């Protein structure tokens, strides 16, 4: 069992309840949607103990419960105050053990199949990926920088890629693309408990990036950023290139004076921290700095921000298994944004954009959800 690797940590949970915080349903989105103790970090540690002691077996019900966890890392932050247990890692290990025990949720099978067969989560042919990328306004074969677009941007939000590349052009930066050779980063496999499957995706993508001879890989996706920068080195050792998230890159360009931003009269805006660049990587200040560099914009914070941020509902593959419940998490985030008085909710991950747009529509909110590159491009155009 994979959870054997975490035995000491699992037994070290004293069930203190720090993972729940003082507003019990408002720290952990899993507890928020499921309500029961099994949806809390400490409850899951008791379940892990029972699994280790062979008092419990994996079942469809248990697997379904494991997929109420968004892997957002909020409990890890809370537990760092107490026992420092790596709860999200243990949850992923439980998902892996569940699959090894022959228990896989039906709703995940098509996604796993799509990834294996088409190397993207939407089961689109690779040629489609290439076709989409060929429509990008500019590419440079000889470049130090490669833009890794990822599945969600390529197939759902190509505008984010277009906008990012337009910004790069205005800063006179050459950029390469993988085109048809780009595969999914492999993040969904981690979420689904199939992390061993990621290896061939890592090997493929790194090989293709190396062939381009670039020094830096840039991505607008928080998930791709986490996997490329944190998981690939675990699989393949040190990478021959740097991985940078678009918020870091834009911030650097603005600092250097390479982007001249003009005023944008959009009033108050608020920023949503994507979990995979926030809690997982500590990228909190760069996106805020980018937004505040735009004259006339007033950045207002939601009560839950930075390491205490609330997940958009798009993490952990919960939206595949418990779609409506995941949307309710996004709806709460929209409410948080509305409470600030902002008219615009900026974020820096296509999955967050997708979930928050859906939640906003479902809630009939007037708040506009926008990717950070779109905001910056608007400020360049003015």
């Amino acid at each position: 069992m994979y959870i054997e690797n975490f035995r000491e940590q699992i037994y070290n949970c004293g069930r203190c309840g720090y993972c729940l915080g003082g507003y019990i349903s408002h720290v952990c989105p899993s507890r928020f949607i499921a309500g029961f103790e099994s949806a809390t970090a400490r409850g899951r540690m008791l379940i892990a103990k029972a699994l280790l002691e062979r008092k419990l077996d994996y079942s469809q019900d248990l697997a379904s419960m494991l997929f109420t966890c968004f892997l957002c890392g909020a409990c890890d932050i809370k537990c760092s105050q107490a026992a420092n247990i790596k709860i999200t890692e243990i949850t992923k290990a439980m998902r892996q053990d569940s699959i090894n025990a022959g228990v896989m949720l039906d709703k995940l099978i098509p996604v796993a199949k799509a990834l294996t067969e088409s190397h993207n989560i939407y089961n689109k042919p690779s040629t489609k990926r290439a076709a989409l990328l060929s429509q990008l306004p500019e590419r440079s074969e000889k470049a130090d920088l490669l833009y890794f677009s990822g599945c969600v941007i390529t197939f759902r939000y190509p505008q984010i890629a277009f906008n990012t590349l337009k910004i790069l052009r205005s800063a006179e930066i050459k950029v390469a693309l993988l085109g048809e050779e780009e595969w999914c980063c492999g993040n969904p496999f981690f979420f689904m408990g199939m992390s061993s499957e990621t290896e061939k995706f890592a090997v493929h993508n790194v090989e293709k990036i190396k062939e381009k001879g670039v020094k830096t890989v840039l991505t607008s996706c928080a998930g791709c950023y986490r996997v490329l920068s944190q998981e690939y080195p675990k699989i393949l050792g040190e990478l021959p290139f740097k991985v940078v998230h678009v918020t870091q890159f834009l911030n650097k360009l603005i600092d250097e004076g390479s982007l001249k931003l003009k005023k944008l009269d959009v009033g108050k805006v608020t920023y949503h921290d994507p979990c995979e660049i926030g809690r997982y990587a500590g990228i909190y200040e760069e996106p805020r700095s980018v937004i505040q560099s735009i004259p006339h914009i007033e950045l207002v914070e939601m009560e839950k921000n930075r390491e205490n941020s609330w997940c958009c509902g798009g993490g952990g593959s919960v939206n595949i298994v418990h779609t409506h419940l995941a949307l309710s998490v996004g709806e709460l985030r929209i409410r948080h944004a509305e409470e600030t008085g902002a008219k615009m909710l900026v974020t820096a991950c296509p999955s967050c954009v997708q979930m928050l747009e859906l939640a906003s529509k479902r809630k009939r909110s007037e708040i506009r959800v926008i990717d950070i590159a779109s905001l910056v491009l608007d400020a360049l155009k003015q």
Partner: protein
Amino acid sequence: MNADNVWKELIEIVGEDRVSKSDFELYAYSRDLSPAKPRLASYIVRPRDMEDIVKLVKLANEHKIPVYVRGCGCSHWAAWLPVRGGILLDMTSMEKIVEIDEENLVAVVEPGCTWFKLMEELRKKRLTYLSSEMGGPAMTIGGSVVKAGGGPYGTCKFGFHGQMDIIGFELVLPTGEVVKTGSWAMSKCKPFRREGLGPDLTGLIVGSEGIFGIVTKVALRVRPLPEHEEFLYFEFNDWEDVVKVGDAVTIWIGDEAAYSLDCSEEASKVGAIGVRIYVFGYDKHIVTYRKRLIMDICRANNGKEGDPKIAEKTFKKVVSGLHGIFAAGVWHFAGCGTIPIRELPKYVKLWREIIERHKFYRSTFGAWAFPRGWTIYVHLLYSETMEHEKISLLSNEINSKFFENGMVPYGIGGPDGLQPFLKGEWDTYYNLVRKIKRFLDPNNILQPGILVE
């Protein structure tokens, strides 16, 4: 009992998404903070309101099923572990702050509301409550008051919960009737006063460990947030000196000099006693006077002044959570209870002897003052994979010795808690409690096996 019928009726009462009998769910609710072995309920139910609870209690009576009541599960004394199976109520859905009455200085909350949440919401109105337990942010008020909990925060001045700060309860009796206590019992009266209508039945519920009824609302005394506060930290080498400080600080009953006085000694540093003191008030001159007075008392009793930030950190984090406290292992508390003001050194001596005999030095002896007494505790840090048996033996020895010497527990719990150590220690009172329980709960459905057998 027809299990299928019970299941259907539970779903009818609370809805499908609020009841579970999944094996993994039962394990998730099987332990509290103590080393007690897992105890499995048959059903987990999350009631929404008092009406749900009335129906659930009636169902339990009809089918003779035990009902156990759990807040956020932070008990150290096996006070809710379902020792006879049955229904385990998770009260955390009932977490509302119903009212903050700024005129009468009373807050009415549902039992699943945490101290942390109440503190945050009161602070927005420049209010605070009197005293609370020391623990994590998830401690719920309902669970805390039915066991008459206490911690170092405010206890030096105001004593434990229930001494004066619980104004009244709304509760569902084991047979399903709904009762309010204190001034709240009057149909046209708000909760503003605890006494007045015959005996103090609020007091019957405080410390009852949930055996006489299920609390559905708690009315608490609140007060304006103090404008001024001071923190002091002193080090002592002798507990006799610490006792003299506690004695002097609490001698003026009703006008105790300190709000909180908390001290401890680690087994690895015997003779190094840290004393943390918190003084608060509304008038700067009074607070300054009290601070000077306590400093003089400490100095006169061989105290060495240290960094007041140590005390500030402790008291400011009492409710929101101290940092890194569980990083080195799981905590267990033994020898927890109250003793008269002068008896402290006797218990320190017993602790030191036991710890030395077992060569177990990951332990702390702690005490915090309340008016004319101390609450004491022994904290043991252990590895659950390697030392579970050892810690149980050690803890049993500490409990036995402390109770033999007259310590009064502040939480008893069930057979996995302190109940076995108290056999024969409180016979007449025990029988009276059991008689009341039998009268109120003829089918013994509520918390059977907890507090009394």
